[in-house]
């Protein structure tokens, strides 16, 4: 059977499972809808959290990014796992003891202010929408690459599935589908990794193969060979990278703190019955996440080695079949700058912008002298002739390594599982922010549980539609604004929650001033460099050499400083708030 049939089968089966779970786990009350009735076991919650957290980007793009960044890619590996230590030690157990439904709930109650609650709602909604647009786009991409379905139709199919289980089941439906989605995505990620690790190094465990010698008889270590290939071609060595040390430091910190401040992750720890369940549940979540996150850098190195060995200084006509297949998708392009028919891979761009495939009047692809797919782009300066999209490293891995067709189908199902599980978690945050934090807590406080549940469903449905709209019409700067999501979470929620738990005397004036300062500072910095003046986005203009990706760390420090300074001027919080803080510190 070919890849497409396998993909239809595997995607069909997994979708049927998700729908089956949705029907089985229907939410009956708002507590079911918001926090799955707080009946989820720690292990189940850990697995669901892992799926919630690992998005289309983690599954499809991260290994590819690391492949091209080498050591610098460590910012994602440490940044997106280290935050769980902060979650376990500083947030999860106390928020579980607090025991309400949402983050704005905590901010609103702890800082005895609906204004603070509203700021938290706004942050939660901005952060979640930024993130969810990318997920829906990811769903569309997988459909178009593997099933040759139009990308917009792919987004619509994804919306229909998420709509079904998020609107029906709320957190309860989402939790159990996420467990299924975790199993699918981790299986899909690991199978090609085992194969490739074994092929290249003779050791099937990718974490070990990563540090082993190549099985080509040279006896050379994989990473040593990779460094050698890189320096020969004029790249920085794979294991040392090019970013400045302070930038690596600040980006890692922003991602870690941002992770610990992301509302869709935090809220998962409201779903377990006890404080000690919340603690261990973070541990389980990180184990499940670490399986993928320690494999990804290995895949990155294997894929980079395979690619460099296959293409560099080889004749185009000698390329394996997958090269042609991926050229036709626009993810891989070769432009023969010196007309020698040989592929030159070197630092710098090959073409300007993304490949734009040339087609004749009949819509057929135009080919060059050696049969390569021609593109309309202007050629970039410099010797490099090869454009490789980062995502190809995971998508094309099974073909590059000559794996059976079902493995490629599995990768498609895994990518969809990763995107859908994250999208659902984010949509839930948006819907609870509207139905609970705005309607129940502020607009109509006497609303019945049934009516609130209905509003939660309406809000979830509305959020799916908006997310779908952004998936089909992505704002041009989607990739850029992901930095905003982490920066905002780091600069707004994280300090407010930490101070709320660990500093009893922090009052509402301090917290509000801090959140606003952190938020505006971070937003302004990111918008300035990423959207308004991208031409200035380089280290010589950055403050202290910190890129917009890392600025959330500074925003967080600013938030803490402003909170403290403003907090000193105003009176202590009321007695009952101080008692609340006292009570969340002890499990019983």
């Amino acid at each position, binding site marked *: 059977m070919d890849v497409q049939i396998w993909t239809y089968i595997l995607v069909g089966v997994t979708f049927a499972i998700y729908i089956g779970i949705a029907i089985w786990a229907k939410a009956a009350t708002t507590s079911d809808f918001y926090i799955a009735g707080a009946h989820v076991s720690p292990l189940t919650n850990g697995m669901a959290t892992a799926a919630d957290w690992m998005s289309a980007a983690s599954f499809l793009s991260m290994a590819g990014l690391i492949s091209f960044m080498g050591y610098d890619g460590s910012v994602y590996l*440490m940044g997106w796992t280290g935050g769980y230590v902060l979650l376990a030690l500083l947030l999860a157990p106390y928020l579980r003891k607090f025991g309400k439904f949402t983050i704005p709930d905590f901010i609103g109650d702890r800082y005895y202010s609906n204004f603070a609650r509203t700021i938290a709602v706004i942050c939660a909604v901005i952060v979640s929408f930024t993130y969810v647009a990318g997920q829906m786009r990811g769903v569309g991409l997988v459909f178009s690459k593997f099933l040759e379905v139009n990308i917009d139709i792919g987004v619509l199919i994804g919306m229909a599935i998420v709509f079904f289980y998020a609107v029906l089941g709320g957190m309860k439906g989402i939790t159990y589908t996420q467990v299924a989605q975790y199993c699918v995505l981790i299986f899909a990620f690991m199978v090609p990794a085992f194969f490739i690790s074994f092929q290249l190094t003779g050791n099937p465990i990718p974490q070990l193969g990563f540090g082993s010698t190549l099985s080509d008889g040279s006896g050379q270590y994989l990473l040593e060979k990779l460094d050698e290939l890189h320096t020969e071609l004029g790249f920085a060595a794979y294991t040392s990278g090019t970013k400045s040390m302070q930038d690596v430091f600040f980006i890692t910190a922003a991602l870690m703190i941002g992770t610990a401040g992301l509302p869709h992750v935090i809220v998962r720890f409201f779903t377990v019955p006890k404080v000690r369940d919340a603690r261990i549940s973070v541990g389980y979540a*990180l184990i499940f996440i670490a399986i993928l996150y320690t494999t990804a850098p290995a895949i990155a190195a294997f894929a980079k080695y395979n690619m460099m060995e296959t293409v560099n200084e080889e004749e185009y006509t000698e390329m394996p079949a997958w090269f042609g297949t991926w050229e036709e998708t626009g993810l891989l392009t070769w432009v023969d700058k010196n007309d020698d028919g040989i592929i030159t891979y070197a630092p710098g761009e090959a073409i300007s912008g993304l490949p734009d495939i040339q087609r004749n009047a009949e819509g057929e692809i135009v080919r060059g002298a050696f049969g390569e797919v021609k593109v309309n782009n202007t050629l970039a300066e410099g010797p490099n002739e090869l454009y490789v999209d980062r995502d190809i490293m995971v998508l094309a891995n099974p073909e590059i390594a000559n794996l059976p067709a079902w493995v490629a189908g599995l990768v498609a199902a895994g990518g969809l599982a990763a995107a859908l599980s994250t999208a659902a978690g984010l949509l839930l945050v948006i819907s609870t922010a509207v139905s609970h934090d705005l309607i129940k807590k502020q607009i109509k406080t006497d609303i019945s549980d049934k009516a609130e549940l209905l509003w939660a469903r309406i809000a979830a449905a509305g959020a799916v539609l908006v997310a779908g709209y952004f998936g089909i019409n992505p704002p041009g700067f989607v990739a850029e604004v992901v930095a905003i999501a982490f920066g905002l979470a780091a600069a707004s929620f994280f300090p407010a929650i930490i101070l709320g738990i660990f500093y009893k005397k922090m009052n509402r004036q301090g917290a509000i001033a801090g959140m606003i300062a952190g938020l505006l500072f971070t937003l302004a910095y990111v918008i300035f460099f990423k959207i308004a003046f991208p031409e200035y986005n380089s280290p010589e203009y950055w403050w202290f050499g910190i890129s917009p990706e890392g600025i959330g760390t500074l925003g967080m420090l600013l938030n803490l400083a402003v909170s403290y300074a403003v907090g000193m001027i105003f009176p202590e919080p009321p007695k009952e708030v101080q008692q609340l803080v006292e009570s969340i510190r002890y499990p019983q």
Partner: protein
Amino acid sequence: MSERDLKGYWKKNLSYLGILLSIWFVVSYGFGILLAPVLNEIQMAGFKLGFWFAQQGSIYTFVILIFVYVYLMNNLDKEFNVREDD
């Protein structure tokens, strides 16, 4: 339960946090970033050590730290009699 007991519990909790977060910081930001160029002089199997900490070792350490914390806190809950009923 007397006020003194809870203060003791919280103080101990904070000291655990201090120790565990110091390790968290030293392993990731220390070994993985600030000291990486120095540690890269040391070779461990096919890895340069600083690179290994940045892409593998720090993640393993994070997992271990959380489970150590869970173990310590579960004991502390019992010791100070603040453990939730089953």
